[in-house]
């Protein structure tokens, strides 16, 4: 059996005396669509930052495709085929939409730190960039400066940058935060399309999105995972209802 896409063993993270993540075990099979939910301040984004290398872990191990990556730099982890988006829109605001996507492609297409090739003379690179633009339905915006796009468009662009490099593990941090109903529906379809046959991990507050997209749900409360199961079982779980769904879900809807 091939190793898990992501495997966490007793991961802990504290900032000074504050323990944010208090021993998380989590294993994601390849191709799984996994949602992490939990009340505000539970440590969801922190967990994301630990897996993607933004922060180092205080204890425990993080494995991506069976290899230890804890305390490696984000770029090193990304090169193993793990790509993420951010809770707050995180694009290259002064560059065009086309260039934003192209930046996501350069490393994995083998250009690395090359200073002997010209980017606009690489037909394959341009072609691939256009394909991604079409996939996220932004071909008509290709020459616009990313910073002037609407919020929903910027979020879609961010998804585009995230998937461009062809990573097989995609991690999305609240991809539908702050979106209207129709925008959310659109985003769900977009995510479903671009993450086909890939491992998806997402943090999400919108329960509609979570139950719509995820095969499995983990519930994170105060730095610990209290349940990790299929949506039906999580919904039925008494502990989860007590800790989260019962109160928070009412508030969400």
């Amino acid at each position, binding site marked *: 059996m091939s190793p898990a896409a992501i495997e966490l063993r007793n991961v802990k993270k504290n900032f000074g005396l504050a323990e944010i993540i208090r021993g998380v075990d989590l294993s994601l099979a390849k191709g799984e669509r996994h949602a992490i939910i939990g009340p505000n301040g539970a440590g969801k984004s922190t967990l994301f930052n630990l897996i993607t290398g933004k922060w180092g872990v205080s204890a425990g191990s993080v494995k991506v495709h069976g290899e230890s990556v804890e305390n490696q730099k984000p770029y090193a982890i990304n090169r193993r085929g793990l790509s993420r988006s951010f809770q707050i829109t995180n694009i290259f605001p002064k560059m065009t939409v086309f260039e934003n996507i*192209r930046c996501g492609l350069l*490393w994995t297409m083998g250009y690395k*730190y090359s*200073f002997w090739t010209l980017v606009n003379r690489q037909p394959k690179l341009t*072609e691939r960039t256009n394909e991604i633009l079409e996939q996220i339905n932004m*071909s*008509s915006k*290709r020459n616009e400066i990313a910073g002037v796009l609407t919020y929903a468009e910027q979020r879609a662009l961010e998804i585009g940058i995230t998937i461009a*490099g062809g990573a097989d593990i995609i991690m999305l941090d609240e991809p539908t935060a702050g979106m209207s109903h129709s925008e959310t529906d659109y985003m769900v379809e977009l995510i479903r399309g671009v993450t086909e046959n890939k491992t998806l991990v997402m943090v999400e507050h919108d329960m509609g999105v979570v139950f719509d997209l995820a095969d499995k749900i983990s519930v994170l409360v105060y730095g610990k995972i209290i349940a990790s199961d299929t949506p039906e079982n999580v919904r039925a779980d008494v502990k989860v209802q007590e800790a989260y769904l019962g109160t928070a879900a009412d508030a969400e809807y």
Partner: protein
Amino acid sequence: MTVAKESSAVTNTRMPWFNISQAMPWIMAIGFLLVLPVMFASGSALTIMNQMAITIIFALSYNMLLGQGGMLSFGHAVYMGLGGFFCVHLMNMVEYDNLWLPLPFLPVFGGLFGLIFAILIGSFSTGRAGTVFAMISLGVGELIAASSIIVVAFFGGEEGISGDRTMGPSTFGLDFASQLEVYYLTAVWLVISALAMFLFSLTPIGRIANAVRDNAERAEFLGYSQRHVRFISFCASGFFAGIAGGLFAINFEILTEENLNLATSGSILLITFLGGVGFFIGPIIGAIVFTLLQTVLSLYTEIWQLYVGTLFLLTVMFFPYGLTGLIAMHIRPYKLGKISMLYQSYLRMSVPAIVCILSLFSLLEITFHARHAAIGEEQMRLFWISFNSHSILPWLVVIALALGSGWMVKSLAPDIKEAWDEANYVGPGK
């Protein structure tokens, strides 16, 4: 999706190796460089043009850091200066130790020396951008400038170190004794360096340097180490600064502490910003304007630095994209076909604006003369008028002119704004 179809059709046709519309600005620039010395043949004009060309290369290399890489350096003179010092030593080795090195290739070695130092210093300074990088560059700049006084063997102490460019093996029958020969040598290097730096900005590393400048964190999650990206840009920038240093050595045949110090590093920041950091051509315009002000204005007034400083301040405050940004602002009205709407209000504004600037200029000059001229020397000439700077009348005239024209400028300002809004308005006129 017609747009998508169109764009994929564009990509399927391979880009030709040579594209005439892209090459045109370069061909025009080369033609311009060729005829310049015919138009301005005097020795001092040649000196100014050489200095301009060197400053352009230096400013372009600086913009690789600031404009393209988002690194604010306060010590870029170090790489130009060290490249220059090394080249003077090489010239002396050619003269005394029979080293075979034709002069036209000397700048390459300046560049390599700049590169070596950029590798050494960049290895620890490019870890962070922002304030940390700026402070390290400031410290290193001061360190090297201070050691130039201490390490006399290499830097020649306070009087610097000088050489003779004409002692090398003759190249194509040229010995580079004349200014004109040096001009063409400098011009060739200017074109090579500028083209190389332009192409660098179009490579994967050049594009990613922009990405790291905009959002270093995002780039890290796309497989790029921000540190490595900055380091490579830094090294390339050091290399081209070194080439500028080599050309400086050839032109002036002397390098001193002044070529390394903070004042020089500061002025290249000023030049680049004045021209506009957001554009490739910005530093070129900045270098041309600054060199002209420095050489021509200083012939007429002792307080030229005050004017340059004021120009810089006004640019930073009102046109943060520099002089090039000011020009680029007019592309939109031009494309909308409404540029003619601006002519009239610009023309109306120009007279009071020029009078206002010149009267403020006169006020400063009269004050300077009254305070600093030798005792007993009370007559001064300004704009072909001779008068007594200690009498009250010229003061009154100048102040009245300044206030009057200033008031006119102020009352015309809403007009300009209205014309501007109208010219930038998409759609038919209101």
